[in-house]
């Protein structure tokens, strides 16, 4: 008799739900709708975490398993993995959804290992069948899409963040208090603190958006326009070309290019950058490239998905305002 219920891990940090939680529940809901089973979402955290259950119910959780324990105020990988594994082993689930966030990438394989189950990681598309699950997962720095078949009574899936859009699907979300499978203080791996990098510069290697400036900005003071645009995005880092770091307008650590950083963000906005071979070598694998330059023959336009020909000093403030507007709506 095949399992019909679907498990979803709802990630939270510092007492707040992460977007990953809603994505996981939505994914589980989709599968449960076709198997006819229930979605059991799990929340773990310090005292008070149960308050987040309602949001999970709104996305489709029939049951919300709440593990409320001071030992889980910080991420407790071993205790959490043991508890989830215990739950998956004792209750039959068709699938268990995690999101491959920084935490999910750590947690999901631990769970799979404890359950002695295979895992499909960094999944962008999936289809849960009666005896097999098929998934798609990009590899080779995104240059190849691989399709896999996973065979297990319980399929453990770790989805790429953003692969699933959270959807409303109101369900009861009955809260069920659960206890940790092991004493949380006995865990060998201990998170001693979680520190928010408030105001700290987002690293070029991590930032999903990079706004970069080149010599077209004419003088170092104009870099403020680049910084303003990055701030408008909220999750953007600021980069620079070699020409500009050589002039001393920006530190060498900001340099993107052959002798600087090699980056691959979701969105790369090149402001006043001509696109010399030195620079292109550092950013051409970015998913979407926008270029703003007054020279329509500039090589950057050959790699840019979208280009605007014009004076970058004029365009940036307008773009910044537009991005701020767009973000407000989101």
């Amino acid at each position, binding site marked *: 008799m095949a399992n019909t219920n679907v498990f979803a891990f709802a990630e939270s940090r510092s007492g707040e739900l992460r977007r990953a939680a809603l994505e996981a529940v939505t994914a589980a809901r989709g599968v449960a709708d076709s198997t006819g089973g229930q979605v059991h979402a799990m929340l773990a955290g310090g005292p008070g975490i149960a308050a987040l259950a309602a949001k999970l119910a709104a996305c489709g959780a029939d049951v919300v398993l709440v593990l409320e324990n001071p030992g889980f105020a*910080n*991420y407790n990988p071993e205790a959490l993995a043991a508890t989830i594994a215990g739950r998956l082993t004792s209750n039959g689930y068709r699938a268990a959804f995690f999101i*491959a*966030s*920084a935490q999910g*990438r*750590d947690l*999901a*394989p*631990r769970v*799979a*290992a*404890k359950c002695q*189950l295979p*895992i499909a*990681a*960094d999944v962008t598309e999936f289809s849960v069948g009666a005896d097999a699950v098929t998934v798609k997962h*990009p*590899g*080779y*720095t995104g*240059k*190849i*899409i691989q*399709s*896999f078949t*996973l*065979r297990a009574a319980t399929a453990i899936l*770790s989805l790429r963040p953003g692969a699933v859009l959270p959807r409303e699907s109101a369900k009861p979300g009955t809260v069920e208090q659960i206890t940790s499978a092991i004493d949380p203080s006995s865990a060998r*791996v*201990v*998170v*001693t*603190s*979680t*520190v*928010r*990098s408030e105001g700290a510069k*987002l*690293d070029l*290697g*991590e930032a*999903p958006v990079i706004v970069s400036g080149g010599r077209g900005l004419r003088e170092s003071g104009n870099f403020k326009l680049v910084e303003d645009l990055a701030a408008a995005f909220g999750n953007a880092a600021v980069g620079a070309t070699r020409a500009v770091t050589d002039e001393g307008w920006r530190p060498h650590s900001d340099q993107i290019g052959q002798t600087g950083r090699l980056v691959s963000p*979701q*969105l790369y906005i090149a402001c006043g950058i001509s696109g010399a071979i030195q620079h292109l070598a550092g950013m051409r694998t970015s*998913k*979407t*490239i*926008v270029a703003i330059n007054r020279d329509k023959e500039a090589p950057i336009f050959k790699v840019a*998905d*979208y*280009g*605007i*020909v*014009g004076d970058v000093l*004029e*365009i940036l403030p307008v*773009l910044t305002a*537009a*991005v701020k507007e767009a973000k407000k709506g989101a």
Partner: protein
Amino acid sequence: MKIAVLIKRVPDMDLRFKIASNGTSVDESGLKFDISDFDGYAVEAALQTKEKQADPAASEVVVISLGPDVVQETLRKAMSLGADRAIHLKCDTPVHDSYAIATALAAELKGGGYDLVMFGRMSIDTANQSTGPIVAELLGLPIITAISKLGLEGGRVKARRELEGSYELIECPMPAVVTIDEGIARPRYPSLKGIMAAKKKPLEVKPAQVGEERYKLDKMELPPERAAGRIIGEGKDAVPELVRLLKEEAKVL
């Protein structure tokens, strides 16, 4: 201190790939291979750890790789950087199930007396980021994944992990498993002296005891072609159109 580093031989990622006629592998003609990027950082971190020991000569860095005979080149490269010896777990067919791979690795590592077992946080080609934690579980060792700073103090691993917009300070006792992220160390460049020395270092070959494969590769395909870019307009009047495209077409806003 005895350190094991698990490495994988991968093709150079900067080239365009073609799918082989069998549909389940990459066409290797014209490809150059090297140590997977994150594994390279792990090797460097291991070498630096050894060099920082009170008596480096009493420490050992062992590199291990699973795959066909050709991975021996990659093991020699790791030894040219400074690893002391290598173990080749021979497996001629590609395996994609992290659990199955982990079974083979754990079988080799068990009883090896390693203080630290290091992985790259993921292989740059298959990018599953799962093998390390499964190996740790099979060995019964604590594991910290994706660390950007590594410290060893008083028999404990003290590390830092980057999260989204924040970071964790995290620790565990040794012996332990760690997977290495970017930022720990820049790999060194092999000197000719190192390359020559590596030819003489010990390399052991053993059959890999791969577990049952429950996650199988059906096919590989290329993603849809990147559409040619276009200049969408001139001056600040083009901005609204750009924002629209970023939102609706590129979906990055």
